[in-house]
Protein backbone atom coordinates (compact mmCIF):
# COMPACT_ATOMS: atom_id res chain seq x y z
CA UNK A 1 0.00 0.00 0.00
CA UNK A 2 2.59 2.50 1.12
CA UNK A 3 5.03 1.20 -1.47
CA UNK A 4 2.40 1.56 -4.20
CA UNK A 5 1.64 5.11 -3.10
CA UNK A 6 5.28 6.20 -3.23
CA UNK A 7 5.83 4.43 -6.53
CA UNK A 8 2.90 6.36 -7.99
CA UNK A 9 4.31 9.56 -6.47
CA UNK A 10 7.55 8.89 -8.30
CA UNK A 11 5.81 8.19 -11.61
CA UNK A 12 3.37 11.08 -11.52
CA UNK A 13 5.10 13.82 -9.52
CA UNK A 14 8.75 12.89 -9.97
CA UNK A 15 9.25 12.76 -6.19
CA UNK A 16 11.50 9.77 -5.76
CA UNK A 17 11.26 8.49 -2.18
CA UNK A 18 13.05 5.27 -3.12
CA UNK A 19 13.46 4.08 0.47
CA UNK A 20 9.70 3.51 0.76
CA UNK A 21 9.28 1.20 -2.22
CA UNK A 22 12.72 -0.13 -3.10
CA UNK A 23 13.65 -3.02 -0.79
CA UNK A 24 17.40 -2.54 -1.27
CA UNK A 25 17.33 1.17 -0.50
CA UNK A 26 15.05 0.58 2.45
CA UNK A 27 17.36 -2.00 3.97
CA UNK A 28 20.34 0.33 3.45
CA UNK A 29 18.48 3.17 5.10
CA UNK A 30 17.34 1.02 8.02
CA UNK A 31 20.86 -0.35 8.50
CA UNK A 32 22.09 3.23 8.64
CA UNK A 33 19.38 4.13 11.11
CA UNK A 34 20.33 1.15 13.28
CA UNK A 35 24.04 2.04 13.18
CA UNK A 36 23.23 5.60 14.23
CA UNK A 37 20.99 4.35 17.04
CA UNK A 38 23.65 1.89 18.16
CA UNK A 39 26.38 4.57 18.21
CA UNK A 40 24.00 6.90 20.09
CA UNK A 41 23.07 4.37 22.78
CA UNK A 42 26.60 3.12 23.44
CA UNK A 43 28.05 6.65 23.41
CA UNK A 44 25.37 7.95 25.75
CA UNK A 45 26.03 5.18 28.28
CA UNK A 46 29.79 5.50 27.99
CA UNK A 47 29.70 9.30 28.26
CA UNK A 48 27.57 9.04 31.41
CA UNK A 49 30.12 6.62 32.90
CA UNK A 50 32.98 8.96 31.93
CA UNK A 51 31.14 11.91 33.45
CA UNK A 52 30.64 10.06 36.74
CA UNK A 53 34.23 8.86 36.84
CA UNK A 54 35.41 12.40 36.08
CA UNK A 55 33.56 14.07 38.95
CA UNK A 56 34.57 11.26 41.26
CA UNK A 57 38.26 11.76 40.50
CA UNK A 58 37.97 15.57 40.49
CA UNK A 59 36.28 15.56 43.87
CA UNK A 60 38.58 13.00 45.46
CA UNK A 61 41.02 15.63 46.74
CA UNK A 62 44.04 14.45 44.78
CA UNK A 63 45.67 17.40 43.06
CA UNK A 64 46.99 15.30 40.20
CA UNK A 65 43.58 13.74 39.58
CA UNK A 66 41.97 17.16 39.57
CA UNK A 67 44.49 18.50 37.09
CA UNK A 68 44.07 15.50 34.78
CA UNK A 69 40.29 15.77 34.76
CA UNK A 70 40.55 19.48 34.15
CA UNK A 71 42.89 19.01 31.19
CA UNK A 72 40.61 16.36 29.75
CA UNK A 73 37.47 18.49 30.15
CA UNK A 74 38.91 21.72 28.80
CA UNK A 75 40.70 20.06 25.93
CA UNK A 76 37.68 18.17 24.66
CA UNK A 77 35.29 21.06 25.19
CA UNK A 78 37.41 23.56 23.30
CA UNK A 79 38.50 21.64 20.23
CA UNK A 80 36.37 20.68 17.22
CA UNK A 81 34.79 17.21 17.53
CA UNK A 82 35.50 16.52 13.86
CA UNK A 83 39.23 17.08 14.36
CA UNK A 84 39.10 14.93 17.51
CA UNK A 85 37.48 12.18 15.49
CA UNK A 86 40.10 12.49 12.72
CA UNK A 87 42.82 12.50 15.34
CA UNK A 88 41.56 9.27 16.88
CA UNK A 89 40.74 7.49 13.65
CA UNK A 90 43.76 8.47 11.55
CA UNK A 91 46.50 9.32 14.03
CA UNK A 92 45.84 7.02 17.01
CA UNK A 93 44.20 4.31 14.91
CA UNK A 94 47.19 4.33 12.57
CA UNK A 95 49.56 3.63 15.45
CA UNK A 96 47.66 0.62 16.77
CA UNK A 97 48.66 -2.80 15.48
CA UNK A 98 46.37 -4.64 13.07
CA UNK A 99 44.96 -8.04 13.88
CA UNK A 100 44.31 -11.00 11.66
CA UNK A 101 40.64 -11.15 10.72
CA UNK A 102 40.56 -14.93 10.36
CA UNK A 103 40.27 -14.84 6.57
CA UNK A 104 43.95 -14.28 5.91
CA UNK A 105 43.59 -10.48 5.83
CA UNK A 106 44.53 -7.82 8.33
CA UNK A 107 41.97 -5.55 9.91
CA UNK A 108 42.48 -2.65 12.28
CA UNK A 109 42.19 -3.30 15.99
CA UNK A 110 39.36 -0.78 16.41
CA UNK A 111 36.87 -0.29 13.59
CA UNK A 112 35.61 3.08 12.34
CA UNK A 113 32.41 2.61 14.34
CA UNK A 114 34.53 1.83 17.38
CA UNK A 115 36.55 5.02 17.01
CA UNK A 116 33.38 7.02 16.44
CA UNK A 117 31.96 5.67 19.70
CA UNK A 118 35.21 6.37 21.57
CA UNK A 119 35.51 9.92 20.20
CA UNK A 120 31.87 10.85 20.82
CA UNK A 121 31.89 9.34 24.31
CA UNK A 122 34.96 11.34 25.26
CA UNK A 123 33.52 14.49 23.69
CA UNK A 124 30.13 14.23 25.42
CA UNK A 125 31.75 12.88 28.59
CA UNK A 126 33.76 16.11 28.96
CA UNK A 127 30.51 18.07 29.00
CA UNK A 128 28.93 15.54 31.36
CA UNK A 129 31.71 16.05 33.92
CA UNK A 130 30.89 19.75 34.06
CA UNK A 131 27.14 19.09 34.17
CA UNK A 132 27.45 16.57 37.01
CA UNK A 133 29.77 18.89 38.90
CA UNK A 134 27.21 21.69 38.71
CA UNK A 135 24.52 19.26 39.90
CA UNK A 136 26.64 18.01 42.80
CA UNK A 137 27.50 21.53 43.88
CA UNK A 138 23.79 22.31 43.97
CA UNK A 139 23.14 19.59 46.59
CA UNK A 140 22.73 21.42 49.91
CA UNK A 141 25.85 21.26 52.09
CA UNK A 142 23.74 20.34 55.11
CA UNK A 143 22.66 17.08 53.49
CA UNK A 144 26.28 16.03 53.03
CA UNK A 145 27.16 17.06 56.57
CA UNK A 146 24.19 15.20 58.00
CA UNK A 147 25.16 12.06 56.10
CA UNK A 148 28.79 12.39 57.21
CA UNK A 149 27.73 12.74 60.81
CA UNK A 150 25.74 9.52 60.42
CA UNK A 151 28.97 7.73 59.53
CA UNK A 152 28.50 7.33 55.78
CA UNK A 153 31.67 6.52 53.86
CA UNK A 154 32.45 8.65 50.83
CA UNK A 155 31.18 5.97 48.44
CA UNK A 156 27.95 5.44 50.38
CA UNK A 157 27.45 9.17 50.65
CA UNK A 158 27.73 9.52 46.90
CA UNK A 159 25.63 6.54 45.99
CA UNK A 160 22.80 7.12 48.40
CA UNK A 161 22.64 10.87 49.05
CA UNK A 162 24.54 13.08 46.62
CA UNK A 163 24.05 11.36 43.28
CA UNK A 164 20.30 10.72 43.50
CA UNK A 165 19.74 14.42 44.27
CA UNK A 166 22.38 15.79 41.90
CA UNK A 167 21.12 13.65 39.07
CA UNK A 168 17.64 15.11 39.32
CA UNK A 169 19.05 18.63 39.41
CA UNK A 170 21.20 18.22 36.34
CA UNK A 171 18.75 16.29 34.18
CA UNK A 172 17.73 19.29 32.01
CA UNK A 173 21.34 20.16 31.20
CA UNK A 174 22.13 16.49 30.64
CA UNK A 175 19.17 16.29 28.31
CA UNK A 176 20.62 19.11 26.21
CA UNK A 177 24.01 17.49 26.04
CA UNK A 178 22.66 14.10 25.01
CA UNK A 179 20.61 15.72 22.24
CA UNK A 180 23.82 17.36 21.14
CA UNK A 181 25.54 13.97 21.16
CA UNK A 182 22.88 12.49 18.86
CA UNK A 183 23.46 15.38 16.47
CA UNK A 184 27.22 14.92 16.67
CA UNK A 185 27.00 11.28 15.53
CA UNK A 186 26.56 12.57 11.95
CA UNK A 187 30.28 13.39 11.99
CA UNK A 188 31.02 9.67 11.72
CA UNK A 189 30.21 10.18 8.05
CA UNK A 190 33.62 11.81 7.67
CA UNK A 191 35.45 8.59 8.55
CA UNK A 192 33.15 6.41 6.47
CA UNK A 193 31.08 4.77 9.20
CA UNK A 194 27.89 3.50 7.51
CA UNK A 195 25.51 5.50 9.69
CA UNK A 196 22.33 7.30 8.65
CA UNK A 197 23.88 10.24 6.83
CA UNK A 198 26.32 7.96 5.03
CA UNK A 199 23.55 5.57 3.97
CA UNK A 200 21.44 8.49 2.76
CA UNK A 201 24.30 9.95 0.76
CA UNK A 202 24.87 6.57 -0.88
CA UNK A 203 21.22 6.39 -1.80
CA UNK A 204 21.02 9.90 -3.20
CA UNK A 205 24.15 9.55 -5.25
CA UNK A 206 22.76 6.42 -6.90
CA UNK A 207 19.11 7.36 -7.23
CA UNK A 208 19.65 11.09 -7.91
CA UNK A 209 17.02 12.05 -5.35
CA UNK A 210 19.06 14.48 -3.26
CA UNK A 211 16.13 16.76 -2.48
CA UNK A 212 13.83 14.00 -1.27
CA UNK A 213 16.47 12.11 0.71
CA UNK A 214 17.71 15.32 2.29
CA UNK A 215 14.26 16.07 3.64
CA UNK A 216 13.75 12.47 4.78
CA UNK A 217 17.11 12.68 6.54
CA UNK A 218 16.31 15.95 8.28
CA UNK A 219 12.92 14.68 9.47
CA UNK A 220 14.46 11.38 10.64
CA UNK A 221 17.04 13.18 12.77
CA UNK A 222 14.46 15.54 14.23
CA UNK A 223 12.34 12.47 15.07
CA UNK A 224 15.33 10.69 16.64
CA UNK A 225 15.98 13.72 18.82
CA UNK A 226 12.28 13.94 19.64
CA UNK A 227 12.29 10.31 20.82
CA UNK A 228 15.29 10.98 23.05
CA UNK A 229 13.71 14.13 24.49
CA UNK A 230 10.47 12.25 25.11
CA UNK A 231 12.25 9.40 26.92
CA UNK A 232 14.23 11.86 29.03
CA UNK A 233 11.09 13.77 29.96
CA UNK A 234 9.33 10.58 30.96
CA UNK A 235 12.34 9.65 33.04
CA UNK A 236 12.49 13.09 34.62
CA UNK A 237 8.83 12.79 35.56
CA UNK A 238 9.22 9.27 36.93
CA UNK A 239 12.18 10.31 39.07
CA UNK A 240 10.57 13.41 40.47
CA UNK A 241 10.42 13.41 44.25
CA UNK A 242 7.06 14.85 45.31
CA UNK A 243 7.56 17.97 47.38
CA UNK A 244 11.28 18.28 46.60
CA UNK A 245 12.01 21.17 44.29
CA UNK A 246 15.69 21.42 43.40
Amino acid sequence: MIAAFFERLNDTQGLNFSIFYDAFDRSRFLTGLWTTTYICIVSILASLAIGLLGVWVAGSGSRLGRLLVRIYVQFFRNTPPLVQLSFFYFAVGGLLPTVSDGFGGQSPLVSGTGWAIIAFSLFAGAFNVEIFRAGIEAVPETMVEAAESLGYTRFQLWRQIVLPLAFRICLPALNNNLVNLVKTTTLAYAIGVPELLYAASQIWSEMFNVREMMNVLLVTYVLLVAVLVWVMHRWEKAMRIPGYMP
Partner: protein
Amino acid sequence: MKTGTTDLSVLKPFRVTPIPPSGLAAPVLLSAGLIASIVVTFAASLAVAQAIGPAARDGAMAILWRWAPLIFQGFLFNLLISFLSMALGTAVGVLFGIGQVSPSAALRRPAWAATQFFRNAPWLVLLFYAMFLLPFEIRLGPVTIAFPAWIKAIIGLALPVAANVSEIVRGGIRSIPSGQWESAESLAFTRRQTMWMIILPQAFKRMIPPWMNLYAILTMATTLISVVGIQDGLTVTRAALVAESRPELMLPMYLLLLLMFFAYCYPIARLTIALERRFNVKG
Protein backbone atom coordinates in the same frame (compact mmCIF):
# COMPACT_ATOMS: atom_id res chain seq x y z
CA MET B 1 29.42 58.75 56.71
CA LYS B 2 33.04 57.75 56.34
CA THR B 3 33.62 54.18 57.34
CA GLY B 4 37.37 54.23 57.64
CA THR B 5 37.54 56.42 60.73
CA THR B 6 35.59 54.41 63.23
CA ASP B 7 36.32 51.43 65.40
CA LEU B 8 32.73 50.33 65.62
CA SER B 9 32.70 46.96 63.92
CA VAL B 10 29.19 47.53 62.63
CA LEU B 11 30.32 50.34 60.40
CA LYS B 12 33.30 48.63 58.88
CA PRO B 13 32.91 47.75 55.23
CA PHE B 14 31.80 44.16 55.05
CA ARG B 15 33.75 41.60 53.15
CA VAL B 16 32.07 38.88 51.19
CA THR B 17 33.63 35.54 52.08
CA PRO B 18 34.87 33.95 48.88
CA ILE B 19 33.23 30.71 47.81
CA PRO B 20 35.68 27.88 48.52
CA PRO B 21 37.05 26.35 45.33
CA SER B 22 35.44 23.03 44.51
CA GLY B 23 37.01 20.41 42.32
CA LEU B 24 37.09 22.08 38.94
CA ALA B 25 36.34 25.77 39.50
CA ALA B 26 39.41 27.42 38.23
CA PRO B 27 42.27 28.82 40.26
CA VAL B 28 44.90 30.49 38.10
CA LEU B 29 47.46 27.88 39.07
CA LEU B 30 45.40 25.09 37.54
CA SER B 31 44.96 27.12 34.37
CA ALA B 32 48.71 27.45 33.99
CA GLY B 33 49.15 23.73 34.72
CA LEU B 34 46.53 22.94 32.12
CA ILE B 35 48.19 24.95 29.37
CA ALA B 36 51.65 23.69 30.33
CA SER B 37 50.63 20.04 30.21
CA ILE B 38 48.94 20.42 26.82
CA VAL B 39 52.06 22.04 25.39
CA VAL B 40 54.20 19.27 26.94
CA THR B 41 52.01 16.59 25.33
CA PHE B 42 52.43 18.24 21.95
CA ALA B 43 56.19 18.60 22.38
CA ALA B 44 56.44 14.97 23.47
CA SER B 45 54.55 13.71 20.42
CA LEU B 46 56.80 15.84 18.23
CA ALA B 47 59.94 14.54 19.91
CA VAL B 48 58.80 10.93 19.48
CA ALA B 49 58.06 11.57 15.79
CA GLN B 50 61.51 13.17 15.42
CA ALA B 51 63.15 10.17 17.06
CA ILE B 52 61.41 7.35 15.19
CA GLY B 53 61.38 9.01 11.77
CA PRO B 54 63.84 7.86 9.09
CA ALA B 55 67.19 9.53 9.69
CA ALA B 56 67.93 10.08 6.01
CA ARG B 57 64.97 12.40 5.42
CA ASP B 58 63.74 15.65 6.93
CA GLY B 59 63.02 15.54 10.64
CA ALA B 60 59.50 15.88 12.03
CA MET B 61 60.27 19.36 13.34
CA ALA B 62 61.39 20.63 9.92
CA ILE B 63 58.33 19.21 8.18
CA LEU B 64 55.97 20.65 10.76
CA TRP B 65 57.70 24.01 10.46
CA ARG B 66 57.23 23.89 6.69
CA TRP B 67 53.51 23.12 6.88
CA ALA B 68 52.50 25.14 9.93
CA PRO B 69 52.00 28.44 8.04
CA LEU B 70 49.73 26.76 5.50
CA ILE B 71 47.71 25.00 8.21
CA PHE B 72 47.46 28.29 10.04
CA GLN B 73 46.12 29.93 6.87
CA GLY B 74 43.48 27.22 6.64
CA PHE B 75 42.63 27.83 10.27
CA LEU B 76 42.26 31.56 9.54
CA PHE B 77 39.80 30.65 6.79
CA ASN B 78 37.82 28.72 9.41
CA LEU B 79 37.73 31.86 11.50
CA LEU B 80 36.59 33.97 8.55
CA ILE B 81 33.73 31.55 7.89
CA SER B 82 32.83 31.64 11.59
CA PHE B 83 32.68 35.47 11.61
CA LEU B 84 30.43 35.64 8.57
CA SER B 85 28.10 32.82 9.66
CA MET B 86 27.82 34.33 13.11
CA ALA B 87 26.92 37.73 11.65
CA LEU B 88 24.32 36.27 9.32
CA GLY B 89 22.96 33.86 11.92
CA THR B 90 22.69 36.57 14.56
CA ALA B 91 20.87 38.97 12.24
CA VAL B 92 18.28 36.32 11.30
CA GLY B 93 18.14 34.81 14.78
CA VAL B 94 17.35 38.10 16.52
CA LEU B 95 14.35 38.59 14.23
CA PHE B 96 13.13 35.07 14.96
CA GLY B 97 13.73 35.49 18.67
CA ILE B 98 11.67 38.66 18.81
CA GLY B 99 9.07 36.87 16.71
CA GLN B 100 8.94 34.14 19.34
CA VAL B 101 7.76 36.55 22.03
CA SER B 102 5.35 38.38 19.74
CA PRO B 103 1.78 38.70 21.06
CA SER B 104 0.43 37.66 17.67
CA ALA B 105 0.18 33.88 17.34
CA ALA B 106 0.53 34.11 13.56
CA LEU B 107 4.08 35.35 14.10
CA ARG B 108 4.94 33.42 17.25
CA ARG B 109 4.05 29.89 16.13
CA PRO B 110 6.05 29.80 12.87
CA ALA B 111 9.03 31.44 14.59
CA TRP B 112 8.85 28.84 17.36
CA ALA B 113 8.48 25.93 14.93
CA ALA B 114 11.38 27.06 12.73
CA THR B 115 13.57 27.60 15.79
CA GLN B 116 12.85 24.15 17.22
CA PHE B 117 13.33 22.45 13.87
CA PHE B 118 16.69 23.99 13.05
CA ARG B 119 17.90 23.67 16.62
CA ASN B 120 17.25 19.93 16.69
CA ALA B 121 18.65 19.09 13.26
CA PRO B 122 22.31 18.07 13.09
CA TRP B 123 24.67 20.80 11.86
CA LEU B 124 26.26 18.55 9.25
CA VAL B 125 22.88 17.63 7.74
CA LEU B 126 21.90 21.31 7.53
CA LEU B 127 25.24 22.03 5.89
CA PHE B 128 24.60 19.30 3.31
CA TYR B 129 21.13 20.73 2.85
CA ALA B 130 22.50 24.16 2.01
CA MET B 131 25.31 22.82 -0.14
CA PHE B 132 23.15 20.62 -2.32
CA LEU B 133 19.85 22.43 -2.48
CA LEU B 134 20.88 26.06 -2.91
CA PRO B 135 21.34 27.02 -6.55
CA PHE B 136 24.85 27.98 -7.64
CA GLU B 137 23.54 31.31 -8.90
CA ILE B 138 20.39 33.37 -8.64
CA ARG B 139 19.06 35.46 -11.51
CA LEU B 140 17.24 38.60 -10.51
CA GLY B 141 16.34 40.11 -13.88
CA PRO B 142 19.60 41.26 -15.45
CA VAL B 143 21.67 40.71 -12.30
CA THR B 144 23.16 37.30 -11.64
CA ILE B 145 24.28 36.62 -8.09
CA ALA B 146 26.80 33.80 -7.95
CA PHE B 147 26.71 31.43 -4.99
CA PRO B 148 30.15 29.86 -4.66
CA ALA B 149 30.52 26.90 -2.32
CA TRP B 150 31.90 28.91 0.59
CA ILE B 151 28.92 31.28 0.59
CA LYS B 152 26.60 28.28 0.62
CA ALA B 153 28.61 26.88 3.53
CA ILE B 154 28.18 30.16 5.41
CA ILE B 155 24.43 29.98 4.87
CA GLY B 156 24.38 26.32 5.91
CA LEU B 157 26.19 27.06 9.14
CA ALA B 158 24.10 30.17 9.76
CA LEU B 159 20.87 28.13 9.86
CA PRO B 160 21.50 26.36 13.20
CA VAL B 161 23.21 29.51 14.53
CA ALA B 162 20.08 31.54 13.78
CA ALA B 163 17.91 28.98 15.58
CA ASN B 164 20.17 29.02 18.64
CA VAL B 165 20.37 32.83 18.67
CA SER B 166 16.60 32.88 18.47
CA GLU B 167 16.42 30.77 21.65
CA ILE B 168 19.02 32.97 23.36
CA VAL B 169 17.06 36.12 22.53
CA ARG B 170 13.80 34.56 23.68
CA GLY B 171 15.41 33.37 26.92
CA GLY B 172 16.96 36.79 27.50
CA ILE B 173 13.68 38.62 26.99
CA ARG B 174 11.80 36.12 29.14
CA SER B 175 14.33 36.52 31.96
CA ILE B 176 13.34 40.17 32.46
CA PRO B 177 10.80 40.32 35.32
CA SER B 178 7.25 40.97 34.14
CA GLY B 179 7.10 44.00 36.45
CA GLN B 180 9.23 45.83 33.88
CA TRP B 181 6.61 45.25 31.20
CA GLU B 182 3.79 46.27 33.49
CA SER B 183 5.39 49.46 34.74
CA ALA B 184 6.30 50.44 31.17
CA GLU B 185 2.70 49.89 30.20
CA SER B 186 1.48 52.01 33.09
CA LEU B 187 3.81 54.78 31.88
CA ALA B 188 2.06 54.63 28.49
CA PHE B 189 4.97 53.16 26.54
CA THR B 190 3.87 51.37 23.41
CA ARG B 191 4.92 47.75 23.00
CA ARG B 192 7.61 48.66 20.49
CA GLN B 193 8.98 51.36 22.79
CA THR B 194 8.94 49.00 25.76
CA MET B 195 10.81 46.40 23.76
CA TRP B 196 13.52 48.66 22.35
CA MET B 197 13.97 51.11 25.22
CA ILE B 198 13.36 49.00 28.31
CA ILE B 199 13.45 45.25 27.77
CA LEU B 200 16.16 44.73 25.14
CA PRO B 201 18.81 46.96 26.77
CA GLN B 202 18.46 44.93 29.97
CA ALA B 203 18.20 41.58 28.23
CA PHE B 204 21.18 42.32 25.96
CA LYS B 205 23.66 41.95 28.78
CA ARG B 206 22.31 38.54 29.71
CA MET B 207 22.44 37.34 26.13
CA ILE B 208 26.16 38.00 25.69
CA PRO B 209 27.58 34.96 27.57
CA PRO B 210 25.41 32.34 25.82
CA TRP B 211 26.00 34.14 22.53
CA MET B 212 29.77 33.87 23.00
CA ASN B 213 29.39 30.23 23.94
CA LEU B 214 27.49 29.68 20.71
CA TYR B 215 30.25 31.44 18.81
CA ALA B 216 32.83 29.05 20.24
CA ILE B 217 30.64 26.10 19.23
CA LEU B 218 30.28 27.56 15.73
CA THR B 219 34.03 28.06 15.39
CA MET B 220 34.55 24.39 16.20
CA ALA B 221 31.76 23.43 13.79
CA THR B 222 33.39 25.28 10.89
CA THR B 223 35.65 22.26 10.38
CA LEU B 224 32.55 20.53 9.01
CA ILE B 225 33.02 22.43 5.75
CA SER B 226 35.97 20.15 5.02
CA VAL B 227 33.47 17.28 4.76
CA VAL B 228 31.62 19.03 1.93
CA GLY B 229 34.82 19.76 0.08
CA ILE B 230 35.92 23.27 1.01
CA GLN B 231 39.58 23.90 1.79
CA ASP B 232 39.92 24.65 5.49
CA GLY B 233 42.42 23.91 8.22
CA LEU B 234 41.47 20.24 8.47
CA THR B 235 41.69 19.76 4.68
CA VAL B 236 45.15 21.34 4.60
CA THR B 237 46.29 19.14 7.49
CA ARG B 238 45.12 16.02 5.70
CA ALA B 239 46.69 17.15 2.43
CA ALA B 240 49.97 17.78 4.22
CA LEU B 241 49.90 14.29 5.72
CA VAL B 242 49.16 12.73 2.34
CA ALA B 243 51.94 14.76 0.70
CA GLU B 244 54.53 13.73 3.27
CA SER B 245 53.19 10.18 3.73
CA ARG B 246 54.91 9.83 7.09
CA PRO B 247 52.63 7.97 9.53
CA GLU B 248 54.61 9.05 12.60
CA LEU B 249 53.74 12.68 11.77
CA MET B 250 49.98 12.18 12.12
CA LEU B 251 49.91 12.59 15.88
CA PRO B 252 51.79 15.91 16.10
CA MET B 253 50.13 17.29 12.95
CA TYR B 254 46.57 16.74 14.19
CA LEU B 255 47.60 17.91 17.66
CA LEU B 256 48.89 21.13 16.09
CA LEU B 257 45.49 21.81 14.53
CA LEU B 258 43.70 20.89 17.76
CA LEU B 259 46.00 23.28 19.62
CA MET B 260 45.16 26.13 17.24
CA PHE B 261 41.47 25.69 17.93
CA PHE B 262 42.11 25.27 21.62
CA ALA B 263 44.17 28.46 21.76
CA TYR B 264 41.28 30.33 20.16
CA CYS B 265 38.29 28.74 21.91
CA TYR B 266 39.65 28.33 25.44
CA PRO B 267 40.05 32.09 26.10
CA ILE B 268 36.52 32.61 24.79
CA ALA B 269 35.23 29.97 27.19
CA ARG B 270 37.09 31.60 30.12
CA LEU B 271 35.76 35.02 29.19
CA THR B 272 32.24 33.62 28.93
CA ILE B 273 32.45 32.20 32.44
CA ALA B 274 33.86 35.49 33.75
CA LEU B 275 31.06 37.47 32.14
CA GLU B 276 28.47 35.01 33.41
CA ARG B 277 29.75 35.57 36.96
CA ARG B 278 29.85 39.31 36.46
CA PHE B 279 26.35 39.60 35.03
CA ASN B 280 25.18 37.00 37.49
CA VAL B 281 23.29 35.06 34.88
CA LYS B 282 23.68 31.72 36.60
CA GLY B 283 22.98 31.43 40.29
